[in-house]
């Protein structure tokens, strides 16, 4: 085995053909190198008189950061990797010791495609290795993620956006991707809300024949974003609500009107009136709970009073919602 102390200046750090790792200078690694030194040699490929990195991108970048001039390296020729491509070697080396982050996984697959490896082989051999189903669509999703703009990549790495959302957003133009990544840095959306918000933006664009994301410029969304009283999570919920209103204007107006009429009845908060979620029937469910007979009588009295109110009939109407 050929392990040599190799000058860092002799290594082409710009060649990232075999790079799998996402963050190149993680602080724990720098700390470890500073305190313990480099325990394992990096693997370099010697090709045409040049040395490129196969395994050890992070160690090499951290070494450079520490100002060290040489690293222990195992230097191999192309024949030494055969029949694998050096990238496959690097990938398998990484997988032997750790689970790849989503962006690393996407990067590895994209680079495997770039090596010219048959797609069927990538799908069959590498997707299962990366905990992905061996299907072409899964590969396509990963390639999309790899093309995501820096903002989206940041959001995925930071857990702000789900992988599925990044995949959906990566189909949009880079400015739209950046815009959405800036938005989700201000509002917090659960994975489920992300899916719903993206779905609504797609539906609104198709319905209105407008550019995707146009409602984000609207006053409804601006009002949510600029409201200082709302937490990021509340802003996320309100953002979804604002978009839902735009997509379902009649239904949301009917719901608003129902709540207004319910309030006008003056019932105590412990009595809840629930219409059919889509007003498909006129039925209203009445709910209350009482800990004892006295409270029961009290609430029943409130209902009796509401039953005499002239506003009760209006509660059963969904009229006036047609243009």
């Amino acid at each position: 085995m050929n392990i040599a102390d190799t000058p860092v200046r002799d290594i082409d750090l710009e060649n990232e053909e075999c790079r799998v790792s996402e963050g190149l200078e993680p602080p724990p690694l720098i700390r470890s190198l500073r305190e313990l030194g480099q325990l394992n040699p990096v693997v370099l490929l010697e090709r045409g008189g040049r040395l490129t990195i196969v395994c050890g991108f992070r160690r090499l970048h951290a070494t450079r950061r520490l100002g060290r001039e040489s690293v222990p390296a195992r230097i191999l020729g192309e024949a030494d990797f055969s029949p694998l491509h050096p990238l496959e070697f690097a990938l398998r080396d990484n997988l032997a010791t750790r689970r790849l982050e989503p962006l690393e996984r996407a990067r590895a697959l994209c680079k495997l495609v770039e090596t010219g490896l048959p797609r069927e082989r990538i799908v069959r051999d590498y997707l299962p290795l990366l905990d992905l189903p061996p299907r072409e669509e899964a590969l396509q999703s990963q390639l999309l993620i790899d093309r995501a703009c820096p903002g989206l990549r940041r959001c995925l790495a930071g857990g702000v956006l789900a992988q599925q959302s990044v995949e959906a957003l990566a189909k949009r133009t880079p400015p739209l991707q950046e815009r959405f990544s800036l938005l989700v840095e201000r509002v917090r959306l659960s994975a489920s809300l992300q899916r719903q918000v993206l779905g609504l933006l797609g539906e609104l664009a198709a319905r209105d024949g407008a550019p995707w994301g146009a409602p984000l410029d609207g006053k409804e969304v601006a009002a949510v974003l600029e409201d200082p009283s709302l937490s990021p999570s509340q802003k996320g919920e309100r953002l979804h609500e604002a978009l839902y209103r735009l997509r379902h204007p009649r239904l949301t107006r009917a719901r608003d009107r129902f709540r207004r009429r319910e309030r006008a009845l003056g019932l105590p908060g412990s009595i809840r009136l629930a219409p059919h979620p889509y007003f498909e029937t006129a039925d209203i469910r009445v709910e209350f709970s009482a800990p004892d007979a006295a409270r029961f009588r009290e609430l029943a009295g409130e209902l009796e009073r509401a039953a005499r109110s002239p506003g009760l009939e209006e509660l059963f109407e969904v009229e006036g919602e047609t243009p």
Partner: protein
Amino acid sequence: MMEYRPGEVIVEAGSWGDSATADILRNLPGVPRRTVEDAGGVSASRDTLVLARHRGKFLKQCQGSGAEMCCNYFIASYAWNCHFGCTYCVLQSYLDGSGIVVCTNIEDFLGDIGRTLAESPDRTFRIGTGELADSLALDPITGYSRRVVPFFARLPNGILELKTKSDRVANLEGLEHGGRTVVSWSMNSRRICRSEEACAATLEERLAAADRCRRWGYRIGFHFDPIVHYEGWEEEYREVVRMIFSVVDPGDVAWISLGALRFTPHLRERLIERHPGSRLPWGEFVPGHHGKLRYFRPVREEIYRKMNSWIHECAPGVLVYLCMESRLVWERSLGCGVRDARHLSDCLDAAPLCRFRS
């Protein structure tokens, strides 16, 4: 309309013994054909006509049965799938990839219906053949109407509805129908016909065909289904109502049904994927009966109320009914003309046999 001319005919081995097979193939000279042992596993586009024997029951209750206001309709199928490919059609998700299938044991079809009706002589059966295929689009090839219409004329408790978007009615001329066949057209606004039903007959062609059937003594039905809610829908649908009654006398009309656009979420996805230019998926839909997406109730009520009033402006006595709607929607949009599901069924059973005064 686009004439159906298959690129290939697949004949199930057992079908060669049916006289219908020879009749159909005679109408398709020059079309390549091959035989398969069992057509059940055939995977083909609509360009392929599959001739096969149907082994199960032919007569089934409509899926609306059990709904609050169900019209108690029966479906009888001797063909499956349709070459018109209307964008919203449920057959796209239901029968995709099976080719267009025509059953060749038409005698069994008639036998099944005859037996079922004979078992319940006190009950009237309204039976349509247009649920899983267009009733007449393939008739120039199959000629089945010439067998089915006279058969129903002899049934004391059966009413046949041939439901179509085609104008292929030539075979109906001169048949002894005994007033027991209603020929119905699915109607839509001109805009929707052009954009979503592009391969079907035009409005004018459908109405010209209806006029011919009327002259041959058939009662006529119209189904405004699916009605699409879009900006300007009122004027365009009203125009179609006027067109109908400029051609057809109200007394010739057995019934008119109304149904607003609805689809399963899966069909909606298919529509978006296959017809990206279609405006249909972008209405304000809410989940409804059986998980189908449909317009918000007040929108549907407005559609039905207006359509009903326009129809009755032209034809006050014509029976208008709704497909798979709740009693609430019936009452709020059509008033209380029909008391309940039983009454609705009775009205529709009687409609073909009595003539409304215009």
